Structures are given as structure tokens and as C-alpha cells.
């Protein structure tokens, strides 16, 4: 029982800080950059992702013994798209202004790497309750990251928090932070801060390998790069050989 408790605690705390989906695992970047100009938009996005993540983790975990391995990705996408459609309809019906803020990024939750990544890495190997907990933890981690990015961007970019004027209107806001460029800048700086903290605790830096795309478990582009390197060294060797041969011929002629 005590090991169970330890595991529950481990799973729950992991997603919040140590494996924070945005700052540490570098998943789901598109939406985190796009809708973080206002705190309300960021919160709406986070709650949508949280709901979809928990629901899809539960269903995928329930179906994990029935889905054939070869068609698992399309099956996961179908499940996720179903939940995204439900969330989309609820938001359109009850919170039309949030729907306006999120725009196309709401349907794009379907292809958010966090959700497919957790399905692939966790829910298809673990029980229902623990998968739901993993979804909750990762979703809250995403929320923390989104809120911190949006807090900086809204405060500096428009001088407001949740739409309420905080910095007096006589001080002009720094437009840069409300622009797309500000999203990249704030995320980059926050990620550097997280790297510094991770370094302090002896953890590795945040990396975006092809592994963090998580969708396929293996990254075809990596193999491609390796084959390109090989081709390059092959070509180099051939050139060197040809050069040596030309030199020899010249010496023979002399």
C-alpha cells in the first residue's frame, strides 16, 4: 500500500515541476505561444487542455488492451478529436468570448503533442486511475506554465491582469510583449531560468529532440540525418581518393 501511495505522489508531482510539459519536456509549444497574450485566454486554453487530457487518458487507458498496436495512433487521434469536439461545442455555447480568443488553436488541441505524447508514453501502459492522475498532473503543469507566460506578457504588453488595468494608463505598455515576438522571447527566457534551476538540482537541460515529439516513439528525421552524415563522409572519402589518384598520375608523368 505504501508503494502505491509513493507512486501516486510521484506521478502527481512529476508533471507539475520536474517534468513540466512546456518548460521541461518542450511539448505543445504552438498553443502556449499563441494564446498567452492574455491571462483569460491562457486560462481558457489550459482548462480545455486539462479536460481533454484527463478524459483521453482515461479512455485510452480503458481501451489499452483492445486497440491493436499497429493502428494505435489513428485510434488515439480519434478518441482525442472526439473530446476536443465536445470541449469546442461547450465553449462555443457558454463562453463565446473565450472561443474568440482561442480561435483556431482550440481545434488544434487534437494535434497538441502533450495529449498524444501522454497517451503514448503513459496511458497505454498504466491503469485507469493512475492515468487520470497523470493527465491531471500534466494538465496542471501546463496551466502553471501558461499562466506564468501570460502573466508576464499581459502585464508588460498591455498593463493589465485579467483585463483589469494594473499599471496606470499614463505609462505606455511595452508593445513587444503583446506581439508574437514577445511570446518567443518570454518562453525563451523562462526556459533559461528553468534550465538554471534544473542545473542547481542536477537535472538535465530542456531539450527538444525528436523524442519529445512523442507521436511515433522513434524519430525518422534522426535516421535521415545519420544517413546524410554517412553519405557526406562517403563523398569526402571518394574525393580524397580521387585527389590521391590524380597526384599519383602526375608524379608518374614526371
Amino acid at each position, binding site marked *: 500500500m505504501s508503494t502505491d501511495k509513493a507512486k501516486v505522489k510521484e506521478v502527481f508531482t512529476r508533471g507539475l515541476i520536474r517534468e513540466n510539459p512546456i518548460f521541461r519536456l*518542450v511539448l505543445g*509549444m*504552438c*498553443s502556449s*505561444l*499563441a494564446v498567452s497574450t492574455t491571462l483569460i485566454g491562457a486560462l481558457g486554453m489550459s482548462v480545455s487542455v486539462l479536460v481533454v487530457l484527463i478524459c483521453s487518458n482515461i479512455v485510452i487507458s480503458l481501451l489499452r488492451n483492445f486497440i491493436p498496436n499497429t493502428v494505435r*495512433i*489513428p485510434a488515439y*487521434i*480519434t478518441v482525442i*478529436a*472526439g473530446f*476536443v*469536439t465536445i470541449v*469546442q*461545442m461547450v465553449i462555443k455555447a457558454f463562453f463565446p468570448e473565450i472561443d474568440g480568443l482561442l*480561435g*483556431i488553436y482550440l*481545434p*488544434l488541441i*487534437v*494535434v*497538441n*503533442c502533450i495529449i*498524444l505524447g501522454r497517451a503514448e508514453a503513459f496511458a497505454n501502459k498504466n491503469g485507469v486511475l493512475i492515468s487520470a492522475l497523470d493527465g491531471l498532473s500534466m494538465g496542471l503543469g501546463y496551466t502553471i506554465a501558461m499562466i506564468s507566460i501570460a502573466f508576464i506578457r499581459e502585464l508588460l504588453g498591455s498593463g493589465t491582469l485579467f483585463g483589469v488595468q494594473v499599471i496606470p494608463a499614463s505609462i505606455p505598455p511595452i508593445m*513587444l510583449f503583446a*506581439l*508574437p*515576438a*514577445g*511570446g*518567443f*522571447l518570454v*518562453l*525563451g*527566457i523562462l*526556459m*533559461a*531560468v528553468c*534550465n*538554471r534551476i534544473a*542545473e542547481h538540482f542536477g537535472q538535465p*537541460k*530542456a*531539450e*527538444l*529532440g*525528436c523524442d*519529445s*515529439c512523442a*507521436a*511515433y516513439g522513434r*524519430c*525518422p*528525421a534522426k*535516421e*535521415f*540525418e545519420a544517413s*546524410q552524415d554517412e553519405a557526406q563522409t562517403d563523398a569526402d572519402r571518394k574525393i580524397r581518393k580521387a585527389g590521391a589518384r590524380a597526384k599519383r598520375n602526375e608524379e608518374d608523368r614526371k
Partner: protein
Amino acid sequence: MTHLLSILFVAILVENYVFVQFLGICPFLGVSKKLNTAMGMSVAVIFVMVLSTAATYPINKYLLEPNDLEYLQTLVFILVIAALVQLVEIFLKRHMKSLYSALGIFLPLITTNCIVLGVVVLNVQRHYNFAEAMVNSIGGGLGFMLAMFMFSGIRSRIEEANVPDFFKGLPITLVAASLAALSFQGFAGVADNLFK
């Protein structure tokens, strides 16, 4: 014609899918380290984007809209894209070996990419007709290619630069992307005046 040209110009520069709309950030950051790979990925993205626009447009227009099934758009689009990419992969493997060896490896990566679904959803939301939708997809793909091309160059310089240790890798790349995004902001006024 001017209208189509303006859509193309806006899609490539003013609303650049990477720097302004934040679509396709994962491949942009993940695969832009080498020029060869970056170009292969971009060509594959253009290819898949154009094909999926061509495939989803009639489905939406003649199947979903007349039957009031618009709420199924997300689900139908992503499944059509996934199936289409799988079909293209099989077809290329079988009949066009040379093209497959150049693009094949990137195809499965692109299925679950937000840039492809993003362009399809945008086309529907803006009520583009078929020609406009196709031009928008081509422009979006070219914009992606431009971003990848720029960044494969910038990143090889960054790797040799002396930046603080905890900024190395992703953070400094994001800061560089921020500067690039800022420069794309400058095109916003150009489009309005160029195609009056």
C-alpha cells in the same frame, strides 16, 4: 488575380505560419539544425498541406456543410489527413522510389502536426473558395520553408556563439526566433499598400 496574389503574399510573409501564427513550432525547432533535413521537411510539409487542402475542401463543401455536420470538422479533417498521408506514403514507396527516399521519412512526422490541420481549419473559417484555399496552403508552406531556411543558417551560427551556459540550446534559439518574428512584423503594412 491580384486577390490571389495578395493571399499568397500575406500567407508567406505577413501571416507567416511559424513566426506570426505559431504553427509547426515543433518541426521548426526540432528539424532546423541542418539545411538538408530542413529543406526535406519543408518540401514534405508543402506537399501534404496542398494535398490535404485539396482532399478536405470537397468533403467539407459537399458532405459536411449541406448536412449540418460542421461540428464534425475537426474529427473528419484529422482522420482524412492521417489516412491521406498513409496512402501517399504507400504509393510513393511502391511507385516513386526516388521521391520516397527524399520525402518518405518526413511524412509520418507531419500527420500529427498542427501546421497541416491549422491551414485546413483556417481555410474553412475564412470561407475561402477552392482557388483561394489552394493558394493559401501553398503560401503557408512556402512561408514555412522560408522560416526553416533562415533558421538552419542562424542556428549553425548560434551553435558557435558564446552564450551563457543555461541559455545554450533551446532558450537562445527561441530568443533568436523572437527577433526574426519581430522582423516579420514589418511586412504588415506592406501588404495593404502593395495590392490596392
